[in-house]
């Protein structure tokens, strides 16, 4: 059974939970897989560090938590410092390139790729969509889920009237991810 464990980390307000939710939704509703999302509760939800755990699997998911993720999606230096030690050997790190500086702290054998998601979002007109750029980047690099599934999950999840902007952000991240993945 193929199971992929993902940890999304960043700061409250960056859309960390929504990023995890869209990945889960794309898998569970539009991608024909099982997905479980667990979000951090407590002080994390109120402004400082914030994270989501997503398990995507071909089979029913028993143990619901992500302890040692296959993939990290990181949007802050704090999240990077906190979650890098948990990454599985040979795992993958996707990070916001202007907010996270790996600075040689990556374990050997780890694939790490950055994307200037905040800058891309600002160029598209709203910094707020940086999490959607990250979702696109995730989809482009990992190929875990069909682009169409992620696209539908984004459309299900964003407020009305912002669909066009969010789809642009998704495509921007996705295309950048495809280039990096090659």
């Amino acid at each position: 059974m193929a199971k992929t464990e993902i940890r999304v980390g960043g700061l409250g307000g960056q859309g960390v939970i929504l990023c995890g939710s869209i990945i889960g939704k794309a898998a569970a509703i539009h991608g024909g897989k099982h997905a479980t999302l667990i979000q951090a509760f407590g002080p994390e939800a109120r402004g400082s560090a914030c994270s989501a755990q997503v398990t995507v699997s071909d089979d029913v998911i028993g143990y619901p938590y992500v302890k040692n993720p296959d993939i990290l999606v990181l949007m802050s230096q704090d999240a990077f410092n906190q979650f890098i030690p948990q990454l599985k050997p040979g795992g993958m790190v996707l990070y916001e390139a202007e907010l996270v500086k790996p600075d040689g702290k990556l374990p050997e054998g780890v694939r790490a790729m950055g994307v200037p998601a905040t800058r891309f979002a600002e160029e598209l007109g709203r910094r707020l969509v940086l999490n959607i750029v990250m979702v696109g980047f995730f989809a482009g690099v990992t190929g875990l889920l069909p682009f169409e599934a992620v696209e539908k999950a984004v459309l299900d999840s964003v407020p009305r009237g912002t669909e066009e902007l969010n789809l642009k952000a998704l495509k921007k991240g996705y295309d950048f991810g495809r280039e990096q993945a090659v």
Partner: protein
Amino acid sequence: MHADPKGVLTGVHFIDGDHAACEGALAAGCRFVAGYPITPSTEIVERFAHRIPKVGGVFIQMEDELAASIAIQGAVWGGQKVMNVTSGPGLSLMMEHLGYAFITETPCVWIDVQRCGPSTGMPTGPAQHDMMQVKWGSHGDFQIIALCPNSPQECFDFTIRAFNMAETWRVPVFLMMDEVVGHMTERVDIPEASEIEVVERKWTKKKPGEYKVYETTPEDPVPEMVKAGDGYRIHVTGLTHNEKGYPDMTVPNQERMLGRLIGKITQNAHKLVDVREDGVEGADVVVVSYGITSRVAMAAVEQARAKGAKVGSARLVIAWPFPAERMKEIARTAKVFVVPEMNMGQMVQEVERAVAGAAKVVSVPHAGGSVHEVDTILNAIMEAAR
């Protein structure tokens, strides 16, 4: 009858167990909640408060748990389907009114999203600490029904089932969630209203004057109901009462009343119990679990089988009434019962009582705050299988 489409959010959703439970309540016809929100159950009443103006009903935020747990019972006698939503510390305060709902046969659903105790404990830490409290926590002798969902989908499905059981048996029916099931987000399929069976209240067809509020027959121990304000003279009290609902505090009447109330569940336990079994026949070791622990346990069972152990799983979909007869039967062939729970050993006592020495019973406790590690349960299984 079928669900009222107004309350049914048909479609495929990616929502957490709290929200799914709320949607289950709305689908089942719940139109009144008096809430005193508490972590990790808050999202249930939050969603109810948000949804109910469009569906048509009332949400009131109460001043405390005592008020919440009795206001809902008033609404039942006004004709509504209701639920009471809380977590451990709130549940402790509501215990008086649990007994009241039982003695007055007020059909209602109680959702307990369990968190770590005792006392304030860890508000966002999962636990299965209240399994014995719901069974024994109110004074006097009483019976309840308790369902244990292990996913957001089951939070939806079982809430509807809980409402239907409450109307059928007129006892408080508990949905024993926990913080993980409440806060985890998964796919939830909500069918068309026409595909959802809803049990209507057992309204009387008798005329005022002929109707007695607690009249029953030997064949049917569940009395018919009326709504306050419909012209029937009724009296509802927490005192020991007769068929007319009036206080009748004699030893024979106490025996008659309590015998019927308790018997509704104990004499029908065989119809109520629900154990989901996997590979129990021929198993040396049987893992008994419920709620979120049943998912972690299943992962351990599969790993143990891969190592060659003959292990089965018996999941308590309904914890109360406890399936004692089935446990006895399983004990004729199984050598060891392994019972993981997110508490220091509660339902394991029921397993021990039912098995009565016919097989070994091993408790795998967890103080709460997290689910068991798969390895912890796996090791207990492998040790038992040796």
